[in-house]
C-alpha cells in the first residue's frame, strides 16, 4: 500500500522538485552578480521595509553568500510549506475527492492504518524534498565555483525547512479531517499559511512585536540564528509538539467521521 501511495505522488513530487531546483540552482547562479556588490545593498536600503518584508529580505546582506542563501532558503521554505499542505490534503482527502474511498476503506484495514500509510507516504516525500534542497544547494555552489563557507548553515536551513513544512503538513491533515468538505482542507491550510505569512511580515516591520513570532512559523528559525549555526530549541519543540497535537486530533476525528462523497 505504501508503494502505491509513493507511486501516486511521484509526478507531483517531480514537478515540485523541478520548482525547487529552479529556486536553488538558478537562484545561486545569480549570486555572482550580487557578491560584494554594495550598490545593490544601497538599492535595497531605499526599498520600503514592507517590501523587504514581503520578500523576506529584512536585515539580510544579499552581497554575501550567507545572506543571499538565506533569501533563497526563505523561498524554498515557502515552496516546501505549500507542497506539504498539498501532501497533507491528499493524504486525508484524495480518496474522497476521487470517490475511491469505497474501495480502500472497505478493505480489511483500519482507518488508522490506511491514514497512517498515507501520512507516511507524505512524510517520505516531504523529507526527500528537504534533502534535495540540501543536495541542490551543495551542487549549485560547487557548479558555480562558489566557495561554500556555509555548509553547516545549509544543513540547518534544510532542517528548518523540514520542521516548518512538516508543521503545515500536519496542520493541513488536521484541517482536512476536521472540515467535512474534502476540497476545503487545503484551502483552509493555505489560508492559515497566508495569515501566518502576514503575521511574519508584521513581526519583521513592527518593533516590540516579539510575541507575533509564535504565530509566524516562517520566522521560527531566523536568518541570524541559523547563520550563527543554531536552530532555536524552543521553536523546534513548538513545531514538533504542535505537529503531534495536529496528528493526534486528526487521527481521532478521521476515525470517527462519516466517509462520504
Amino acid at each position: 500500500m505504501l508503494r502505491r501511495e509513493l507511486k501516486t505522488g511521484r509526478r507531483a513530487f517531480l514537478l515540485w522538485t523541478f520548482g525547487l531546483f529552479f529556486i536553488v540552482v538558478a537562484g545561486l547562479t545569480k549570486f555572482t552578480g550580487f557578491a560584494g556588490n554594495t550598490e545593490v545593498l544601497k538599492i535595497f536600503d531605499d526599498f520600503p521595509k514592507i517590501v523587504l518584508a514581503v520578500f523576506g529580505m529584512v536585515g539580510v546582506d544579499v552581497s554575501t553568500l550567507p545572506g543571499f542563501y538565506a533569501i533563497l532558503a526563505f523561498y524554498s521554505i515557502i515552496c516546501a510549506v505549500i507542497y506539504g499542505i498539498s501532501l497533507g490534503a491528499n493524504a486525508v482527502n484524495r480518496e474522497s475527492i476521487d470517490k475511491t474511498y469505497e474501495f480502500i476503506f472497505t478493505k480489511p484495514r483500519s482507518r488508522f492504518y490506511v491514514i497512517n500509510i498515507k501520512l507516511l507516504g507524505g512524510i517520505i516525500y516531504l523529507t526527500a524534498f528537504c534533502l534535495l534542497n540540501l543536495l541542490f544547494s551543495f551542487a549549485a555552489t560547487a557548479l558555480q565555483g562558489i566557495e561554500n563557507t556555509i555548509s553547516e548553515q545549509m544543513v540547518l536551513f534544510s532542517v528548518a525547512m523540514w520542521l516548518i513544512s512538516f508543521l503545515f503538513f500536519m496542520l493541513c491533515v488536521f484541517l482536512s479531517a476536521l472540515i467535512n468538505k474534502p476540497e476545503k482542507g487545503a484551502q483552509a491550510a493555505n489560508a492559515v499559511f497566508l495569515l501566518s505569512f502576514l503575521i511574519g511580515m508584521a513581526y519583521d516591520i513592527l518593533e516590540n512585536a516579539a510575541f507575533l513570532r509564535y504565530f509566524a512559523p516562517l520566522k521560527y528559525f531566523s536568518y541570524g540564528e541559523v547563520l550563527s549555526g543554531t536552530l532555536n530549541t524552543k521553536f523546534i519543540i513548538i513545531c514538533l509538539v504542535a505537529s503531534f497535537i495536529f496528528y493526534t486530533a486528526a487521527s481521532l476525528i478521521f476515525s470517527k467521521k462519516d466517509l462520504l462523497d
Partner: protein
Amino acid sequence: MSFVIETKDLTKYYGKSRGIIDVNLEVGEGEIFGFIGPNGAGKSTTIRTLLGLIYKSSGSAKVFGLDCEKDKVRILEDVGYLPSEVFYYEKMRAIDLLKYSAGFYKKDCSAKIRELSEALELDLNKKIEEMSLGNKKKVGIVQGLLHSPSLIILDEPTSGLDPLMQKTFFSLIEEERKRGATVLFSSHILGEVQRICDRVAIIKEGRIIKTQKISELRENSYKKVSVITQGAAPAEINLPGVSAYQAGDNHLSFMYKGDINALVSAIGGYSLSNIDITDPSLEEIFLHYYEV
C-alpha cells in the same frame, strides 16, 4: 438462530436529514437477500453503515455476529463489496488494481481473478481510465468476489451491464451462493430482485416497510397493462384485480393483480392493435400497493 447480517432499530441521520430509521434486517447464512427501494430510500446508507463507512446514530448493526464499528477489520476480511458507482484509480490497469485489492487478503486470489475476468470477458490489461462504465462495473464485480468472501454486498450491481452480461453476472452470484456465500443484493429494479433473491426487504423513506419471501411477493405481484384498441377503448373493464384504470380514445392502461388467464380472457374480448404487459416500476408499485 444466528444471522450473517442483523440490524436492530438501526438509525442514521446526517445532521438533521433522514438517512434510515429503525431498520431491522435479519439475513441468514447462504441466503440471497434482496434490498429494494427507490433511489434515496436508504439502501446505500444501510450498506455503508454495515461496512463501517459511516457511523450509526442509534441502534445496532452486526455482521457475522460482530459489531460493525468495533470489529470492522475482522468483518471486512470476509466481505466483498460492489458499490453502486464504481470509482477506481484511473491510471491503474485492471490487473494491477485487482492484484492490489487481492493484497489485502491473506489468500492467493490469482485463479479466481482469472476465472471471473474470463467469465465477464474483461480485458485485464486495460487502464481503468480507458474503460466504459460497464467494464468498470466488471472490474468492481471481480474485486468484490476475488477473495471468495462469505458475505457479498452488492449495491445496484447490474447498472451499466448489458443484458447478456447481467445474465452472466447472475450466474456468478448463483455460483457464489452454491459455494456457501450469503448475498445482500440492493436494487431499485424489482424484476432482478425477483429473479435471484430468496427474500426481500422493501425500504421506503428510510424505513423498512415490508420483509417477505420472493414467492409471497410474486403472489402479490402487480402487472402493468397497456392496451391500444382498434376501436374506442372501453370506459371500464369488469375484472377483479384491476386498479388505476385509465382510458383514452383508443388506449387504456391499468394495474392488475390476479389470475393472468382471466386477464387475457377479458382483454381478448376487444379488437387490439397492441398490448404490453410489464412489471411495473418500483415507484408504481409503491404508488399502488405499498402506499397505505
